[in-house]
C-alpha cells in the first residue's frame, strides 16, 4: 500500500517539470504538450485522493479534466495551424503583436 504522499510528491515534481516546459520552450506545440503534462500531474493527485478517501468524485473529476483537456488540445492545435499559416513559425516570441 503506497502512501498518499508519494503520489502527491510525484505529481508535484511532474507539475513543476511541465511548468518549465511551458515557460522555456519556443515551440507552441511543445508548450501545449507541457500543459497536458501539468494536467496529468493534477489528475494523478485526483486519483490518489479518490483512492485514499474512497470516493468516486476524484475519478469523475479526472474524467472531466480529460474532456476539457481534449477540447483544449483541439482548439490549441487549430489555433497553432492557423497561426502557422499566417507567420511561418511556431515560435511564440514571433507572436508578440498583441500588446499596448
Amino acid at each position, binding site marked *: 500500500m503506497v502512501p498518499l504522499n508519494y503520489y502527491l510528491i*510525484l505529481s*508535484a515534481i511532474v507539475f*513543476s517539470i511541465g511548468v518549465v516546459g511551458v515557460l522555456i520552450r519556443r515551440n507552441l506545440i511543445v508548450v501545449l504538450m507541457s500543459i497536458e503534462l501539468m494536467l496529468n500531474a493534477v489528475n494523478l493527485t485526483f486519483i490518489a485522493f*479518490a*483512492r485514499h478517501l*474512497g470516493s468516486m468524485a476524484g475519478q469523475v473529476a*479526472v*474524467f472531466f479534466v480529460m474532456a476539457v483537456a481534449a477540447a483544449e488540445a483541439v482548439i490549441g492545435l487549430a489555433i497553432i*495551424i492557423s497561426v502557422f499559416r499566417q507567420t511561418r513559425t511556431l515560435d511564440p516570441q514571433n507572436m508578440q503583436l498583441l500588446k499596448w
Partner: protein
Amino acid sequence: MNAATVIFLILATLLVISSLMVVFLRRVVHCAMALVTALLLIAILFISLQAPMVGVLQVMVYAGAIMVLFLFVIMFLNPGVLEQPSVAWWGLAVVLSVLLGAFLVPLFSQYEPGDNPVTSTELFGSPDVLAKSLFGEFVLPFEIASVLLLVAIIGAVVLAKREHGSDGAA
C-alpha cells in the same frame, strides 16, 4: 518497502525521466513520444490506484486521440527548424520552477493523510460505479462537458478551415 512501493518507485522514476524528456528534448516528435510514454505510465499508476476505468480511458483519450492529433499536426506543419534556446531565459524559468517544486514537495511530504479509509472493494473504480456517480450526482457537469466538446469541435473546424484565397501550409 513492499512490492507495490517498489513498482511505484520504478514507475515514478520512469515518469519523471520521460517528462523531463518531454521538456528538454529538442525534436518535437521525440517530445511527443516521451509524452506518450509518460501518459502510459500515468495510466498504469491509475490502474494501480484502483481506477482501471480511468486508466484505460487515459490511454484511449490521451495516448489514443490527443497525442495522435499532436503527431498529426506535427507532421502536418513539419517544423524543420530547431528552436534556439536563450540561456538566460532558461535559467530564470528553471530556477522559478525548481522554486515551485521546492515549495510544493515539502508541503506534500509533511502532509498527514490521517486515517485512510481504504476501500478495498472490488467494485471501486469499476465502470458501473463510475457510471453511477457520473450519471448520478455529476450529470449536469457531464452534459456541460458534452456541450463543451461540441463547441470545441465546431471551433476547431472554423479555425483550421482554410478560407479560400489564402494559401495554407502543408
